[in-house]
């Protein structure tokens, strides 16, 4: 029963996590606050209190310097235990870039990340095809739609074995694929060597979503575009409408 958000509607509450080394925390925080009716607060990696939050964002950056493997140390923080429980209870968890890597290391999403095939950091505006438009994070898009967002990572080469990939496909868990302007997911436009051009995946239940591109960096036409707004719009409308998955 979709309902339009009223001025009296309770605010949608985002929590933005700060690990030592996070560096897109303010970007994510500022981006969600450009939407009306949103409250956002920062969560320190030692916090365990997530009450009242509707969506937790694990932002980009280099948690613990990305030493050992990206996300490997951050996933042990007290907060991540709480995030695991939050997700288990159906809470919305969005991992962007380093946040995606942390979710993989924590086992909240399937697969693992390797270094980009060319072993170099890549910062570039890429085209992405929306593969699943029924998630709490993608309802504002339509299936097959091509959106643009920047990537900025050294380890975004997503790996999952054959069986795992089949399972992802069968459950509609591949959410975004790198593609060309016309929506073709060709090898030529795969920036990092990801299996099957995968740029973002969700868990089986659809309430945990990780992606390498940065939607929070394309929420304003002045600095790169507005194609990322849909991710946050989707979350907001999902929360305010109270719709079940």
């Amino acid at each position, binding site marked *: 029963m979709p309902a339009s958000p009223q001025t009296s509607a309770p605010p949608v509450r985002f929590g933005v996590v700060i690990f030592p080394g996070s560096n897109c925390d303010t970007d994510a925080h500022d981006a969600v606050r450009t939407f009306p009716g949103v409250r956002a607060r920062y969560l320190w990696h030692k916090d365990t209190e997530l009450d009242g939050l509707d969506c937790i964002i694990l932002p980009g950056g*280099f948690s613990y310097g*990305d030493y050992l493997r990206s996300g490997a140390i951050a996933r042990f923080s007290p907060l991540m235990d709480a995030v695991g429980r939050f997700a288990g209870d159906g809470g919305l968890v969005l991992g962007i870039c380093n946040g995606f890597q942390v979710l993989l290391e924590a086992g909240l999403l399937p697969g693992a990340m390797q270094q980009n095939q060319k072993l170099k950091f890549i*910062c570039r505006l890429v085209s992405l095809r929306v593969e699943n438009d029924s998630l709490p994070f993608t309802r504002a898009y339509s299936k097959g739609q091509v959106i643009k967002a*920047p990537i900025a990572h050294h380890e975004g080469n997503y790996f999952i074995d054959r069986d795992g990939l089949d399972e992802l496909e069968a459950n509609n868990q591949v959410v975004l694929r790198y593609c060309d302007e016309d929506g073709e997911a060709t090898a030529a436009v795969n920036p990092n060597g990801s299996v099957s051009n995968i740029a973002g995946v969700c868990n089986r239940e659809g309430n945990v979503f990780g992606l390498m591109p940065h939607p929070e960096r394309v929420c304003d036409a002045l*600095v*790169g575009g507005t194609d990322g707004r849909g991710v946050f719009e989707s979350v907001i409308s999902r929360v305010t409408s109270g719709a079940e998955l």
Partner: protein
Amino acid sequence: MTNPTEQKPAYELLGLKAAEYQDICQRLNREPNYLELAVFSLMWSEHCGYKHSRPLLSRFPTEGEAILQGPGENAGVIDIGGGRAIAMKIESHNHPSAIEPFEGAATGIGGIVRDIFAMGARPIANLDPLHFGSLDKPRQRYLLDGVVEGIAAYGNCMGIPTVGGEIHFEDAYEENCLINVMCVGMVEPDKILKARATGPGNLVILIGSSTGRDGIGGASILASAEFDETAEEKRPTVQVGNPFMEKKLLEACLEMRDEGLLVALQDLGAGGLSSSSSEMASKGGTGIDIDIAMIPLREPGMEPFEIMISESQERMLAVVTPGNEAAALAVCDKWDLDATVVGKVTEGDRLRVFQGGEMIADMPVKSLVDEAPTYIVEPVRPGHQVDEPLPEDHYRQPDDLGEVLTTLLASPNICSKRYVFEQYDYTVQTDNALWPGGDAAVLRIKGSPTGVALTVDGNGRKCYLDPCRGGRTVVAEAARNLSCVGARPVAITNCLNFGNPEKGPIYYQFQQAIEGMSEACEALGTPVTGGNVSFYNESFGQAVYPNPVVGMMGIIEDTGKIMTHGFRREGDAVLLIGGARPAVDGSEYQLYIHGEVAGRIPDVDLEKEKSLQALVRQAILEEKINSAHDVSDGGLACCIAEAAVAGGMGAMIDLGKAAFAPGAGPALRADLLLFGEAPGAVMVTAAPEQVDGLRVAAEAAAVPLAVIGRVGGKRLVFSDAGAEVINIPIEAAAGAWGDALEKILEAGV
């Protein structure tokens, strides 16, 4: 056989002259012990003491109403209105990068970033002007890859966007690459921090990494006879950067600033603890006591002098009042940083070093910091420098000018630098409104219509041919780049990269470049807010080109009106505004096609330059033009080709209409019109109905303006005297320009 160095006195091995040693003895009223001598030698080194540059640097104009902090602190600070200020500084890491490119460049970023947050500013952008030897040499490719990866690794991890820079390849830099890095930060004027250790009794806290034997004094100390037996194990180690540590250090320092816990803050850079503590005391008009027994060490058995001059990275020195140390240490602890009270501010003017209870050094702060001897060298004009430009028919005109154009577009100095800038995160912090590839970067300020435009420019080859004109040219070009995006140039920082200043010709170049830069800064109203000097960039007696690199900041009043360089509309008129008669001397065309660097570069007319830039900015503000691009390396043809490739549209250009220096001399040959270089020209495009208005404005400003062609089609066509001299599809230009660098680097391993 005895080692001849064993006969030399310690001071000489530490790089001090006999007279300087006498001077030190006099200031101390006794002979210094080894620790004191090591500290003096470091503070009186060229790098810390500015022995050959200080007298000349005072020529720079440094005053301006927006300047909140000029040279003398860790970075300059400029008020940009709306309760905000910009801190900026540029520094070189040339020598370390030549030894270990990745770590050298990475720690260069680390160092300059610390200078910015030492001012209490949050870093918002990095820029990196780089100069290497020619890329056909495997070592140069190795250096480029290492340096770029090092900058990327450090800057990206810190979450600071690298928004600009420049990369230049030429044989003069083969033995000495120039790795300069600039950092820009934002701070509210009332939160600016200074490095003044005031208030005797206040505590000195060392924060961050433990202290190891990194970069200790270099070879001069190692050669000392006293250390011969253990020289191997004391070999200065390459400094390795830890950007994660620095990120925590940044956050902790800004948090302490916000909580009002800091009396003063200073980074540890060159000269380590010696330099940071004595500079803080000198600025505060106080003394400082340091207890080295309190300092966390990374290695066992470190000598006191090693601890005092270690250049271990990622360390800061903070001064707090005695009641505040617990709160300050708690902030550090929150960020999982080691922090230790290592000393206190004292009455008087001494830097005293203790080891537990015992005083092991006692030196006057002023002598260390402000009284390093200065030297003036007799300037000698270098033999290669000439007064006359080459005759305009000195080189034969190539038959196929289209091929010249594609060759130049694919040359490493002109081609797209995408291969490099895509390794840098330029979108983090979500303020970058003009991504790399244009004339300047523009950062919006959230919640305000204002934007900050940034550029770096250096042109060693032109300075080599004429350092004074070159100095003027480089400042004017930086300003022109800012004006082309619609920004008003406000202030500069600079990095002066030169050879050995003890040589007359190098000293001459240094002096002349400063003169030229100063004149341009005065004319254009962009005072110098600080900078860095890098001397001794030479090997086997061969110096790099004299290369002053300018980092300039400008203000855009309305980020809704940022101008870009790509063609935007079919049918637009192509206009050339300003400009002097283009010359082959010192151009990319001369070097790349004719294989020479010779002649004399044309001068900048600073008054005209000022009018030209005001005119362009006004046209942008009034929304009369659709694109603007500075005419620089590669001349008019490359300028137009870049605009065509960026916009995906061709153009038809009539070279005969180019109003370069009207009436001055006979008609120019097509190759010089196309590829010759002269400062002071901007190419803009505008709707045909805007042309008359622009013409009137140009006449009023006494700036030449000519309509030279029209945007449209899918080809680049240049004609001269009715005949086509170039006609190529824009894909040919795009193909040549687009991934030339990638091809060169991926071809050879």
